[in-house]
């Protein structure tokens, strides 16, 4: 499978994109709607015009049409051919390649088994659930042994639970096949779970490329920080194992209890919505509860972001607006912050 390199890629949405995706890597393009992720995917596929150069390995492929780029493309809306049953949908590219009937049969059966959809072979797309359609579309994209796999928001049509299992399976299949993959999503959680590396896109530009933890713990600029939810990032040391899967660390003067996996912890991160705010000292053990003073309020229609100074550090908390309205929060007021233990992310 080839490395993919994009050099100075531009078109009506993408702006001067330079990017290298390694062989067998699962690379995620992450960004909000309209960021240019799908457009970039279509550029790699050769489905739309662009300026710049795309390399597969050392070969320039700009002049190759989509047919010759050996790309398996899982489109956002899947678009299974409604007039073909599952078997024929998967076999489509093989029939186009004029493979022998026996070869087609054995390849399709292999894919049906790999994606655990053997029982669906004779069904038509209208008879499939969202998750089943997803699997069939993936099998169809993989049928002709593509060198590169492009996945455009592959999980957006299925429910949360199915999506969770399918992305684990997707990652396993990708690693098993060792196929260089570009995966587009707008979900940070999804990206963190599947990605080897992530590129954050914003308004046609790539803002940052890195491993998921690098993106989360070291956002390079405001756009990236805002997209990933403006996490509170604290430097930590002096980890003490408390047993029962938890440890205590000193984070810039705060003593924070964190989930423990027996690794040194350099930083912790906590999203604003994972810090509760209370006007009174909350009941229960005094773990991850900190007293501070409100120094700023940013009120919008849906959420309110509250900056609280705790000792020498400033933490950002977020409340749904309807909860904020019920409380009497104002600048200078003393409040208590509670960290959601299970949502604390640790950087080793």
């Amino acid at each position: 499978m080839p490395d993919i390199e994009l050099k100075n890629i531009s078109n009506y949405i993408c702006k001067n994109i330079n990017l290298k995706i390694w062989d067998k890597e699962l690379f995620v393009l992450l960004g909000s709607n309209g960021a240019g992720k799908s457009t970039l995917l279509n550029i790699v596929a050769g489905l739309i015009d662009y300026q710049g150069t795309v390399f597969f390995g050392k070969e320039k492929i700009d002049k190759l049409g989509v047919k010759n780029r050996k790309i398996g493309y899982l489109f956002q809306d899947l678009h299974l051919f409604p007039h073909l049953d599952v078997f024929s949908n998967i076999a489509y590219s093989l029939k186009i390649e004029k493979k022998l009937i026996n070869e087609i049969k054995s390849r399709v059966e292999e894919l049906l088994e790999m994606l655990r959809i053997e029982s669906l072979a004779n069904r038509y797309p209208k008879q499939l659930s969202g998750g089943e359609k997803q699997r069939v579309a993936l099998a169809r994209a993989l049928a002709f042994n593509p060198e590169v796999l492009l996945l455009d928001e592959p999980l957006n049509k299925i429910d949360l639970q199915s999506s969770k299992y399918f992305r684990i399976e997707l990652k396993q299949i990708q690693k098993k096949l060792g196929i260089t993959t570009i995966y587009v999503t707008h979900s940070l959680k999804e990206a963190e779970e599947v990605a080897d590396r992530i590129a954050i896109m914003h308004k046609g530009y790539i803002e940052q490329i890195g491993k998921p933890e690098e993106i989360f713990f070291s956002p390079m600029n405001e756009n990236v920080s805002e997209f990933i939810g403006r996490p509170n990032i604290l430097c930590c040391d002096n980890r003490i194992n408390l047993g029962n899967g938890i440890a205590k660390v000193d984070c810039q003067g705060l003593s924070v209890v964190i989930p423990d996996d027996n690794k040194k912890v350099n930083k912790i991160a906590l999203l604003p919505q994972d810090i509760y705010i209370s006007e009174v000292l909350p009941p229960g053990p005094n773990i991850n509860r900190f007293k501070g003073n409100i120094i700023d309020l940013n009120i919008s229609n849906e959420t309110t972001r509250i900056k609280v100074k705790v000792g020498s550090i400033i933490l950002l908390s977020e409340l749904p607006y309807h909860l904020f309205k019920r409380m009497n929060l104002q600048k200078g007021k003393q409040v208590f912050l509670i960290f959601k233990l299970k949502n604390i992310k640790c950087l080793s």
Partner: protein
Amino acid sequence: MIFSRIIKSILGIFPIIIFLILWELMARMHLISGKFFLPPFSMVVSEFYNLTASGVLGKSFISSLSRVLIGFSLGTIAGIIFGILTGWYYLLDRTLSPIISLVYPIPALGWLPLLMLWLGIGEILPITIIFICSFFPILYNTSTGIKTVDKNYIKVARSLGASDKEILTSIVIPLALPNIFTGLKLESGMAWRVIIAAEMVAIPTGIGALMMRAESLMRIDIIIVCLIILAIMCFLFERFFIFLEMIFTGKWR
């Protein structure tokens, strides 16, 4: 399942039986008289038998049927071919669509005087009329069907390595079938209506001509026999295409 189907069939036939009984009773009791003379249904059946036995009805029917089959088949084949071409090739569509838009609204029977002068009174005339009657609507429906296939299916097929020709034959035409069948269903009945009208006006043989002869003899029973045959043929042709549509698209639609 089978039981419910039988019930449905009986429910479908039941109103027709009631209608025929009422017709028979009203005619026998002379509830409709004078210039609206209505023969009883039994007399129509009897006349149907007489006409069939004498061979008059069979001969007229075969004349009309062969005209419809030949004209409609040719019109359908040509309409589908041109419809596919204009739906798929943009330039061809742009070139031909002004002409088609001008000619399409002309009713098939509107061509009759011109064609009578050009072709004379012979078998070619009704076949040509049926051809015109079928060709334009089927062309229009096919072309629309081809054009309205979701472009994303084409994109997907292209990404799977299909050439334009392969996309057309394996994706676009099959997905346009529902539109094509809509045209066929509508126009198969229309072909019968037009042939009867044409035969009444200009052609001395066929069911339409038989009706005109019956009219001159004030044989309402024969007229009704012909009308019933027309209704049955329209119904059967439409059913035939519904059946074909079910075979070709029923599984996936």
